[in-house]
């Protein structure tokens, strides 16, 4: 019964694993972009809107694992939101198909600035195996500007989580500013 599961959770501790470290180089460059744009900081919590612009659903399988108790995205201040209007980050998968180009662009426009776009998976980088098809326009940056890429077919949940942690890192105010606040 449910009680047994809860008792086991109390006895064995959480199933959630430590989060991967942020990539310092990428964090620095993303922070620099925020500075350069003189944009308001997004804060430590990031709202993510996932957009499938034509993937095979392999990337969605792994993104869905981020919400599981093993990776538990929400403890890091990251959460998936239902509308692009609530989002700070667009997590985009797949090559951009001609049939999704308009929807992706509209989603991007609906997301308030400042925003990050993360392209997830080999298809999202340059079309992947579908490169050269007349039914796609290319990778995600053929439609909207991209801030970070995650390689892999599909990328593992840890690889995706690492980039998301890096986004948080880029948003964290530098120490001197933190003291003043």
């Amino acid at each position: 019964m449910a009680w047994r599961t809860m008792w086991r959770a109390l006895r064995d501790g959480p199933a959630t694993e430590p989060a991967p470290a942020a990539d310092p180089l990428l964090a620095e460059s993303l922070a620099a972009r925020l500075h350069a744009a003189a944009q308001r900081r997004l804060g430590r919590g990031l709202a993510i809107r996932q957009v499938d612009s034509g993937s095979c659903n392999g990337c969605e399988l792994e993104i869905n694992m981020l919400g599981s108790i093993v990776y538990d995205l929400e403890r890091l201040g990251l959460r998936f939101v239902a509308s692009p209007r609530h989002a700070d980050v667009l997590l985009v998968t797949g090559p951009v198909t001609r049939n999704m180009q308009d929807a992706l662009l509209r989603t991007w426009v609906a997301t308030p600035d400042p925003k990050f776009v993360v392209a997830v998976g080999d298809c999202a980088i340059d079309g992947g195996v579908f490169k050269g098809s007349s039914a796609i326009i290319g990778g995600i940056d053929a439609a909207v500007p991209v801030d970070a890429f995650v390689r892999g077919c599909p990328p593992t949940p840890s690889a995706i989580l690492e980039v998301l942690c890096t986004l948080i890192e880029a948003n964290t105010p530098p120490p001197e500013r933190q003291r003043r606040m």
Partner: protein
Amino acid sequence: MNARTLLLTATAEPCAPVPRRHLDGAQWAAFAAALAQDPSLELRAMWADPLSVYAVFLVPEDGTVMFASVPVELGLYQGLSPARPSAVLYERMIHDLWGHTAANGLDGRPFLDHGNWTATPPLATRPLPNLTAPEPKEFLPAEGEGLHRIPVGPVHAGTIEPGHFRFTAQGEIVVRLEVRLGYAHKGTLGLMLGKSPRVAARFAARLSGDSTVGHAIAFARAAEAAARVLPPARAEALRCVFAEIERIANHLGDIGAITNDAAFALMQARFVWHREQLLRATETAFGHRLMMDAVVPGGVSVDLAAGGEAAITQVLDTLAAEWDTLLATYDNSASLADRMVTTGTLSHALAASFAPGGFIGRASGQEADLRRVPGYGHYRDIDVQMLVLTAGDVDARVRIRMAEVVESARLLRHVLPRLPEGALIERLDAISGEGLGWAEGFRGDIWHWVRVEGGQITAAFMADPSWRQWPLLEVAVEGNIVADFPLCNKSFNCSYSGVDL
């Protein structure tokens, strides 16, 4: 003459493992008419090439696979949708991709083509430049007092694939749902042309990521049949292992997601945790969490790594240890049962006429499972047990999936310690031929067809079972409340990319 006899009297074209019956226009018209009187032939897939239209039928009683084709004359052929309503989506797709029109088809609206492609029809011998602007999509009407429409998608609220759902609701009751797909159309079939089967296998493995093994097996079997090659025994056994792991992993994730859609987070937490452990064990055993590109024409590309069997067995043991608790939680939670039972019911009659296959069929009294009938590969040597229920609701589909998890775990424990020794892959020579391949993915029956000339693919099709499952979802959701749609949708879990091609 009945439909079966009509097929057997037609010219047999060389195709392995079943000959293709090439009917002329008159024979095909007689066949289509006979089909309406003969429910024993289940339409399992339909597609085209620039010259002909093809259809695959299965006779579930004796496992006979029948393969038929008809030449297209002046862009027209006799459609099968009057006799088999499940042909509607195939006919719309054939029109969008090859430009052939079903003369008497029930629905002539485009499906995959949204008016955005540069040249149409993309797979015709000579596509013409598309100079017109996209037109607004046309949806089926619903009439009555106080109806309102809810358009959803292609960008959804959750992490799922792109598709457009047009609900017509009265209050919170769904009166009509229409699904419009094609958003994930990547031109996959076109990319396969001119490539060798070995190269094109990468596309088969990426038609629908959750069924990457299932589609790769069906494609490999089609290519092997065309080349008259049999994969080694060890490869066949490993394919069976891959397929059963994929089945368990998908069912675990989906059962978790379904219970989560009923706001029962505890079960999701546990089921998805087990899924993650299985994916990690799979990476240890075969080097990739989803086993993409592990199956290739001729055999398999990876062997079982040292420690792989122990890793997988350990995950199955952990799952088995918790299984009764999970099942009891599911059985004894009234709040869960309230959402699951009698929700999204699919009737026997509809299931029989559409032959959806997989757990959707098995939850509505349909026994079909390609692993048992007609059987293929390693499944011919082992006994697959399965559960058939008749309720046809979300609960029945969840229970079938749970039973399949237990059965697939049993199969893994049986096959893994008895893997035959020997080679992993057989060479495919660059010869010409035509082959049909099938496999039972976690969703149901997958059919692949290739025609190879001098080692290059000149025509191919990859048929996901979702073609016949999407229309049934549209019906199953009728009369339910809008808020239960996610539950119904996840309990079907049809592939978007799998039909978008």
